[in-house]
């Protein structure tokens, strides 16, 4: 049986598969479908200092091979979230909290509150949510702001600090390098691409927020390219995501350079996709006689370099 363990900074995962933030609630929602301890990690919804109400509905719309969402980071705030997070500890798998805010102070607040107890395994700093007016994505498109934010958060915790990057930029490697040099232990990419849909009968945008974030299989080619680029540019591990719906998709990301993968919208379509992907990666490794998933991280790059 191939070894599926991977490391993100200090954090060791039993396998490289986790749900993507915002697509798995606070974990309990998918507990009826399988044993959550089969996940490499549980990643919870974007959490802010105070409760956020989120955007007005309509919040989601289906698009070709994907969907747009404009949830607007509805969440009960860090204090209430903390209680929910402790419930997840019984699954004996690391819990990663996605952290959001309008200002550096708000991000700091979330981490400080969660650091009071030793429940969280890692923080994923969301600098890329396209659906909130201030903060959110604006943080993620400017390398200087990214550097400032991560520099401010780094001293607050010894835990693995993951920075989640926006794909809505000219050069994602620039942001990746900024996060790495400010002390990030790992990177997550991609968050959603900004998109929209128009209702031609009502003659107005379908989403109340006008624009939303595109995810699902449609974005996979873009996500994969960015993982390929970023893993060329930094030395910290990358969690690849964007459209992963099968083990084959996950393997593409790992071959492109991702150390781990996260699955978002596919959970909505197939509630058991995460454990299926774990099993499928294992099968793939076995069929080619690899002894560890770590052997194939970035393998497609080495193939290209050898051939050319």
């Amino acid at each position, binding site marked *: 049986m191939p070894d599926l363990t991977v490391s993100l900074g200090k954090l060791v995962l039993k396998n490289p598969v986790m749900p993507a933030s*915002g*697509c*798995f*609630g606070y974990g309990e*929602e*998918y507990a*009826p*479908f399988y044993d959550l301890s089969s996940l490499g990690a549980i990643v919870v*919804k974007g959490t802010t200092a105070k409760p956020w*109400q*989120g955007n*007005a*509905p*309509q*919040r*989601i*719309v*289906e*698009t*070709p*091979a*994907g*969907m747009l*969402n404009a*949830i607007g980071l*509805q969440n009960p705030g860090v204090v209430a979230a903390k209680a929910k997070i402790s419930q997840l500890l019984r699954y004996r798998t690391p819990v990663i909290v996605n952290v959001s805010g309008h200002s550096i102070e708000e991000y700091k607040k979330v981490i400080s509150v969660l650091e009071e107890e030793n429940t969280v395994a890692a923080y994923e700093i969301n600098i890329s949510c396209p659906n909130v007016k201030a903060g959110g994505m604006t943080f993620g498109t400017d390398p200087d702001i990214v550097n400032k934010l991560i520099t401010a958060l780094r001293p607050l915790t010894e835990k693995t600090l993951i920075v989640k990057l926006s794909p809505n930029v000219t050069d994602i490697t620039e942001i990746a390098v900024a996060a790495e040099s400010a002390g990030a232990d790992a990177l997550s990419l991609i968050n959603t691409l900004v998109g929209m849909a128009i209702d031609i009968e009502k003659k107005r945008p379908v989403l109340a927020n006008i624009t939303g974030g595109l995810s*699902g*299989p*449609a974005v996979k080619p873009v996500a994969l390219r960015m993982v390929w680029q970023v893993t060329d540019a930094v030395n910290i591990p990358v969690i690849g995501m964007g459209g992963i*719906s099968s083990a084959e998709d996950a393997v593409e990301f790992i071959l492109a350079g991702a150390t781990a993968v996260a699955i978002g*919208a596919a*959970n*909505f*379509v*197939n*509630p*058991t996709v995460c454990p299926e992907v774990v099993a499928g990666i294992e099968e793939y490794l076995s069929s080619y006689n690899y002894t560890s998933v770590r052997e194939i991280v970035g393998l497609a790059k080495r193939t290209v370099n050898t051939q050319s």
Partner: protein
Amino acid sequence: MPKKISMEIIEQENVGSNVYRLTLAGKFSAQPGQFVQVAVSTAYDPFLKRPFSVHDCSANTLTLLYRRSGRGTSLLAEKKAGEKLEVVGPLGTGFPMVTEDKIILVAGGIGSAPLFYLLKTLQAAGKKVAFYYGARSKNELILREQYQMLADEYMEATDDGSCGHQGVVTELMADVLDEEKPVIFACGPDGMLRAVAKLAKRNKCRCYVSLEAHMACGVGACLGCVVPNIRGEYVRVCVEGPVFPAVEVF
């Protein structure tokens, strides 16, 4: 407990203009008012599953009643007996069990779908159930005969007068509400639900409404399907609903 289950199509019948009754085989159980998410394609387009109320169910079958209205339901309508469908359910919070003996069900068009199973369940529990059915026109009073036959009382209304009272169905209900103070369970278009809720409030009747919303996950994870409650908080139609006390949401 919801599960993901592959069900075989036993029968797919066209039971009215663009309305289909789909019977699926597989171990399944649900409360009236709960729903399922159905895969309409095995490819990535259409991407999301489609939510449908449980129209009927027994230990080994699940029946859906749906209107062909877009891409997903069109694909669904083409499926034939023998094919398999992936279904996730039962989902959501259905109609509550109540102690009152007199109950009124109010259906608007295809909104009748969940009320068939509810009607049968209530009657099995010994309740007297009146069925009020409204639609634009007679051909949208889908399966009216089955409700007419089963219900203890049956009333109908159409906008165009092609069947029953000409007008909206709430016009038929005012007196009964005032006199009998029944519990009301309603499903149909938003406008009808609001009218029913208003009438219920005025007559101090308890009223539950089943809502629709655009859904992604159907299990409470994405926060995509929310509606504002009376306190302005966003609640999930797929978990806290689809059935809500009318006073909570209108």
